[in-house]
């Protein structure tokens, strides 16, 4: 980047909001994935106008712009793979409007998920997707990745709540999509096009979110299964039972073993553990649904079913699931957390397949995830310094993606393609779909300024 270009950036955002200091370039080189690449400069933007000016300059000078929220992504979405500029939106963090009457919250992209949660709580409302990184991640990042979370089965993902956006396109034009109305079939659904677009089509500067009242009561149950197929059938049984649990999580054998090795929880080392939560506005409502879930667990040979009688007992049952990330993160020097998703009926075959892949490539994979929406998190545990092991992990990941697609699923349920899965895009998307995606990219970002190198778009 030329010194004159840096001066122009300084004049757009102000001296204090520009940096090419080494410490900033290093910290902006990575996210929560294994990928890293240093940018040449970084700016903190404050308004759509500033962002338009920055994108205009990028087009004129030909430098890439990679937008960033909290950098908690797991696929390298905010890694500036081709250098250039990192555009940090973390300081555009105002909640512009909360209208309970309209069921709408309007926010800037840098608002942290937990901040909105706090602001909605006094009204008894929530923005439901509940990503695991909620205390740190930004809503702009949620939109960019179409983030989901533990409650996806019942409440869906970010996409289901975005009513409208303000977006600076890759050519610098500012566009508004959608509106504040609950229903709209007016024109193409441009809002949805931009949700999950990974910062490759435009930069979101304002978000209109649908919000929902928070259920007041929950019921929680834990069940253990000696046989994975039984657990899989139980999940399908729950889906057929007429109720949708707010949470239906699964922990596989490797995960249970790992938790036992590193905690005092003393879990049974069985094929699968299922954790279910139902919710409602009265305890009776939550309990009724839980009874249907428990019937299915029992009907499919659960060895043990533990139902929480109090909030503290529920917290006990949650302990194993909540410890997954921390326990697995500490087992080996490195890990990658995948998020393949399959139809719910294929959860058991997928888990069995993961075990086979691990054995075939001699790698360690611990799996847990959201059985209720088929979104599983096989976590590869390895030593990145060991080239041979690294190679085996990569090969195993390829097999994992192939299997997910073969079972009617997808490479990614909630983390995004980014850099991690760019090479696998054509496994899932046919040539026509790839061609259309690349054409859309070209229309929105003709000079390939925005987040180049991601999603296999710039081939």
């Amino acid at each position, binding site marked *: 980047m030329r010194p004159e270009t840096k001066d122009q950036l300084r004049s757009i955002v102000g001296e204090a909001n520009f*940096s090419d*200091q*080494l*410490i*900033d370039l*290093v*910290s*902006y*080189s*990575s*996210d*929560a*994935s294994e990928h890293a690449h240093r940018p040449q400069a970084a700016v*903190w933007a404050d308004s759509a106008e500033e962002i338009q000016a920055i994108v205009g300059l990028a087009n004129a000078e030909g430098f890439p712009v990679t937008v960033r929220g*909290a*950098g*908690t992504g797991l696929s390298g979405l905010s890694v500036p793979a081709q250098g250039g500029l990192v555009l*940090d939106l*973390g*300081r555009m*963090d105002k909640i512009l409007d909360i209208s309970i009457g309209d069921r709408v919250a309007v926010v800037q992209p840098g608002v*942290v998920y*937990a901040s909105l949660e706090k602001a909605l709580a006094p009204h008894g409302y929530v923005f439901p997707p509940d990503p695991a*990184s909620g*205390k*740190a*991640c930004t809503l702009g990042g949620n939109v960019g990745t179409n983030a989901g979370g533990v409650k996806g089965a019942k409440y869906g993902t970010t996409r289901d709540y975005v009513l409208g956006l303000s977006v600076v396109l890759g050519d610098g034009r500012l566009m508004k999509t959608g509106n504040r109305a609950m229903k709209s079939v007016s024109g193409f659904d441009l809002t949805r096009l931009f949700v999950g677009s990974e910062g490759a089509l435009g930069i979101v500067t304002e978000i209109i979110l649908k919000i929902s009242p928070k259920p007041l009561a929950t019921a929680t149950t834990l069940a253990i299964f000696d046989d994975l197929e039984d657990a899989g059938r139980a999940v399908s049984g729950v889906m057929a039972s007429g109720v949708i649990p707010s949470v239906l999580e699964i922990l596989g054998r490797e995960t249970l073993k790992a938790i036992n090795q590193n905690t005092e929880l003393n879990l049974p080392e069985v094929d699968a553990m299922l954790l279910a939560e139902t919710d409602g506005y009265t305890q009776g409502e939550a309990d009724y649904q839980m009874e249907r879930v428990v019937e299915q667990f029992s009907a499919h040979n659960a060895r043990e079913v533990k139902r929480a009688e109090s909030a503290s007992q529920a917290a006990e049952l949650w302990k194993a699931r909540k410890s997954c*990330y*921390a326990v697995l*993160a*500490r087992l080996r*020097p*490195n*890990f990658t957390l995948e998020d393949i998703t399959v139809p719910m009926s294929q959860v058991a075959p997928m888990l069995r397949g993961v075990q086979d892949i691990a054995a075939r490539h001699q790698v360690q994979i611990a799996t847990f995830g959201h059985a209720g929406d088929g979104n599983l998190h096989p976590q590869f545990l390895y030593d990145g310094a060991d080239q041979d092991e690294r190679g085996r992990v990569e090969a195993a990941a390829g097999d994992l993606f192939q299997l997910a697609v073969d079972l009617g699923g997808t490479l990614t349920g909630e983390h995004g393609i980014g850099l991690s899965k760019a090479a696998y895009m054509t496994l899932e998307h046919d040539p026509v779909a790839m061609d259309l995606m690349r054409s859309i990219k070209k229309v929105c970002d003709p000079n390939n300024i925005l987040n180049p190198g991601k999603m296999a778009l710039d081939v």
Partner: protein
Amino acid sequence: MADQHPLLEKFRDQIQRCSRCGFCQAHCPVFGGTRRPALNARGKMLLLKEVLEGRLELGEELVESLFQCTTCGSCAVNCPSGVDVPAIIKAARKEMVGLGTCHPAFSGMDQVLNEHDNIYAEDEPEDFDRERGGQAEVVFFLGCVGQYREEEASEAALDLLDHLEVDYTLIDEVCCSGVLEDVGYALKPRLASANIERILATGAKTLVTGCPYCYRTFSQQDAYAPLREAGLAIMHLSQFLAGRDLGLHSGLKVTYHDPCDLGRHCGIYEEPRRTISAVAPDFVELADNRQEALCCGAGGGVRGAYAKNSLAMARRRLAQVEQSGAQILLTECNSCVHNLSNAKLRAQKFKVMTTPQFLMELIEDSE
């Protein structure tokens, strides 16, 4: 590489263990005050990882990040990967000082303690008209901030001890020098010996201090082991007061700020609350409390080196006080009182004081 950074090398496993999840951004007070990822715990770990991989020099360019950490420890207690960031930062700073790189405010602290006996280079010790170096059951140790910057808080602590008819004495104290361990240098044996000798000479059975950092130093640092070996009970004033029936009552709405050195670093959360809530039943917690408490921004040498950001951190904590609706913010650390008072806006109507100050006001009102 191992020979190049021996102190940092000890933490290689920890530094690599940082999974870059970024969850520390929710807790790091420096990030919260600046929104600059390079100053967050993850940003610091990324720098050190590159240093250990030989891709980055541990030099001047890293000072602004690595020396801008209050060592409050909130990242460490919340880290899913169990990375002890404050311990790593301390090692990195020592390594850098060894290589001749340091923030001038930090090297200044070491220099001052080479030439003087307190961190402010003051010549006239404040003795609060109390006996020094007498024979007593208890030694009360003021600490540098208490002696030279927050005299009113120290006066109140001493008045309270008088009111409770505690048999205590002050000593000709010198800086405990524990803070040097945090800022890239080492505790001064000369100063530690002087304190140990003077404390033991009083024949006291208990050493009480109003300063959480001095408490931490006396109870955890090897240099002060002779105090512990002599069987001396070492207490923070809040522990000494806990459980006493003070016969006081306040109708005011009161809240409490956990000092990092007393809370996260020493595990003392309940003793101050017991004293305060017995006197002021209308006690409310701040949004982030105990292990999750937000740092006041003063620690780790940051107040001296990065005053503007230190105040920004204090303002975030004060905003939580405002939200709580409390009329009084109490804390047990002179340094926290100092920074929070300096940062308080005129529009913020609550008062900031130490628990002993609050108690002494009630005692004076009732007399």
